[in-house]
């Protein structure tokens, strides 16, 4: 796919595969020339720069205008369409020489016969294309017979349907085929000559006058062009997928840990299918394989593979394997198609592509989650997934066990540390509390003591003041008392002086009276002494008389006596204790004795 341009005095003429870039060209102010299939752009630096950049990106470049020349276009000549477009845009410049033509004139004034026309056309063609030339197109309806190979070369109109093609018949005669086989090799030639392939062929142009058809006689083929074309299409598709971020989409899907439901897309009764299944059987694959028969070569490949992917995905396969038993590059080109590529990118399960081409990797393999070279290898991979999962489980089990042990050990250590910290922390905390409590207690004690001391000092001061005050008052009172006492004494002395005099008088009077009284008493005593002397019983007792006493009284009358009474009788030298036993009263007149009682 290339774009060519021609710079003219006031415009740029762009031709080639311009359809995908029509918006770019339109934005540059281009106008599409339908009859020439080219774009006319205003000439300016920006447009020129953009066009050159476009050509560098996708291929192509400045197109030299073909000058009138007798020789046909060389092998490296630009594509005919571009040349034609250039020629169409420049009326004065023609692609081929019309030197062999004569003005069309009627022989009989009625025009040419078909034979004449054919002859002139054949002549014109031979003049225009005196040598073989390279043409490019896609092979269609290829068939081989004993005499030769027959097909059409086609160009597709850009953006139009596939049926809108321009075709021309082409033939490779058997002798030429054999010659090409010798040059290129049988396999290579067979790979190149297949429907759908775009080829570059060296051809001679001839006209079948009977049918009025142009036919190309193939003289040679450029194998690098076809491969390059395939590669270009492949690269374009890959670039497109990368741009859309789809090339890694299937690769990013996770592989199933247990691929026990595998979808298989392959040709029925093919070796690839049997190899795949046999290999699974060898390993004793425990799962299930859902087979979707598909044509793995030819145009139906696209339809079958796309349908297979969708169908197997709908049946909840864990993964899908697309495999075939190898083949030529031409056989495998179907797997470079956008249809299969987009189907793979849209798949929600990982796809293993074992298309079987060892040298080049087709797009389907490129964007699939995994590429395997053979169906057997694909089966190995499926089994490997299971094995890997088993190993992973065992490994994880081991890791988990170790991890748990380590975790338990770590947690135990953490617990020990926490315990120590807890113990230490609580000790420290309680110690802090104790210290604080002690501080508070000391503070309380100190403040209360200080307070008490203040109060004590205050009280002592008060007491001292009070004492001093009392001392003062006492002294005051003492002094006052002394003064009063002195005053009183003085006053008393003053007041008592007359009394003293009076007392002195009375004292003297009393003395006098005392003396008188004493004298009187003395005289009384003397009188009494006399009386006593007169009453002394001694002389009487000496005469035998006695005196009775009872209870300190002298008894001299009978009335003072009672029978049984104890009485005392005094003698001159003795004192008698007597008991009255009988009493006889005496009649004073008769002096008779009357006994009152007997004792």
């Amino acid at each position, binding site marked *: 796919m290339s774009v060519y341009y021609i710079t003219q005095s006031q415009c740029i003429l762009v031709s080639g595969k311009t359809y995908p870039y029509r918006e770019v060209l339109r934005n540059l102010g281009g106008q599409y020339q339908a009859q020439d299939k080219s774009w006319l752009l205003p000439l300016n630096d920006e447009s020129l720069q953009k066009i050159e950049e476009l050509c560098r990106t996708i291929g192509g470049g400045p197109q030299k205008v073909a000058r009138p020349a007798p020789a046909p276009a060389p092998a490296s000549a630009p594509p005919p369409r571009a040349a034609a477009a250039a020629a169409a845009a420049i009326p004065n410049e023609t692609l081929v020489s019309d030197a062999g033509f004569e003005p069309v004139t009627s022989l009989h004034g009625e025009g040419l016969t078909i034979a004449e026309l054919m002859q002139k056309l054949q002549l014109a063609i031979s003049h225009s294309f005196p040598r073989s030339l390279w043409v490019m197109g896609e092979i269609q309806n290829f068939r081989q017979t004993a005499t030769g190979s027959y097909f059409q070369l086609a160009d597709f109109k850009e953006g139009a349907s596939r049926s809108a093609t321009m075709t021309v018949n082409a033939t490779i005669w058997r002798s030429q085929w054999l010659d090409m086989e010798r040059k290129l090799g049988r396999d290579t030639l067979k790979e190149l000559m297949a429907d759908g392939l775009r080829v570059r062929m060296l051809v001679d142009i001839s006209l079948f006058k009977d049918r009025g058809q142009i036919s190309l006689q193939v003289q040679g083929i450029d194998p690098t062009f076809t491969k390059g074309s395939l590669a270009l299409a492949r690269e374009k598709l890959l670039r497109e997928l990368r741009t859309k971020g789809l090339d890694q989409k299937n690769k990013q899907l996770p592989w199933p840990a247990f691929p026990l439901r595998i979808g298989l897309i392959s040709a029925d009764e093919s070796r690839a299918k049997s190899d795949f299944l046999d290999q699974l059987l060898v390993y004793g694959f425990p799962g299930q394989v859902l087979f979707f028969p598909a044509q793995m070569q030819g145009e139906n490949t696209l339809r079958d593979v796309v349908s297979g992917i969708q169908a197997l995905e709908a049946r909840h396969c864990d993964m899908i394997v697309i495999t075939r038993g190898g083949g030529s590059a031409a056989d495998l080109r179907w797997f470079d198609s956008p249809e299969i590529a987009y189907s793979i990118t849209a798949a929600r399960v990982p796809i293993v592509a074992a298309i079987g081409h060892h040298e080049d990797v087709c797009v389907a393999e490129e964007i699939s989650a995994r590429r395997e070279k053979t169906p057997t290898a694909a089966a190995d991979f499926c089994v490997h997934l299971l094995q890997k999962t088993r190993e992973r489980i065992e490994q994880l089990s081991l890791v988990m066990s170790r991890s748990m042990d380590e975790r338990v050990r770590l947690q135990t250590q953490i617990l020990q540390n926490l*315990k120590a910290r807890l113990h230490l922390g*609580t000790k420290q905390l*309680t110690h802090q*509390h104790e210290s*604080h*409590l002690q501080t508070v207690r000391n503070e*309380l004690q100190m*403040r209360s003591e200080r307070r008490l001391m203040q*109060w004590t000092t205050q009280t002592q001061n008060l007491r001292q003041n009070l004492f001093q005050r009392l001392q003062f008052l006492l002294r005051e009172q003492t002094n006052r008392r002394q003064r009063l006492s002195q005053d009183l004494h003085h006053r008393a002395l003053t007041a008592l002086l007359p009394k003293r005099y009076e007392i002195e008088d009375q004292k003297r009077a009393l003395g006098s009276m005392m003396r008188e009284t004493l004298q009187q008493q003395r005289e009384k005593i003397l009188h009494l002494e006399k009386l006593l002397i007169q009453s002394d019983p001694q002389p009487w007792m000496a005469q035998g008389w006695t005196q009775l006493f009872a209870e300190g009284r002298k008894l001299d009358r009978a009335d003072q006596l009672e029978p049984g009474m104890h009485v005392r009788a005094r003698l001159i030298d003795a004192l008698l204790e007597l008991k009255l036993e009988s009493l006889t009263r005496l009649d004073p007149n008769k002096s008779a004795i009357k006994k009152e009682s007997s004792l």
Partner: protein
Amino acid sequence: MKESQSYQKMLEEVEGLVRDIAAPDLDLDVMVQKVERGYELIRSMKLRLEETKTRIDQLHQRYDESEAGT
């Protein structure tokens, strides 16, 4: 947690009492009441601390015993 708060409240009360005692116009009888209350609280708090220490030591010992057992 409740005991801790109670301890904290007691501590705050004691600290308040200590502050109150420094007041210049404090009555002697009131001061005596406050000092009594302060010493009562301090005694309770010391008791609480002792109980806590004992409890912690017991827990520690019990843990060590269980560790030794395992």
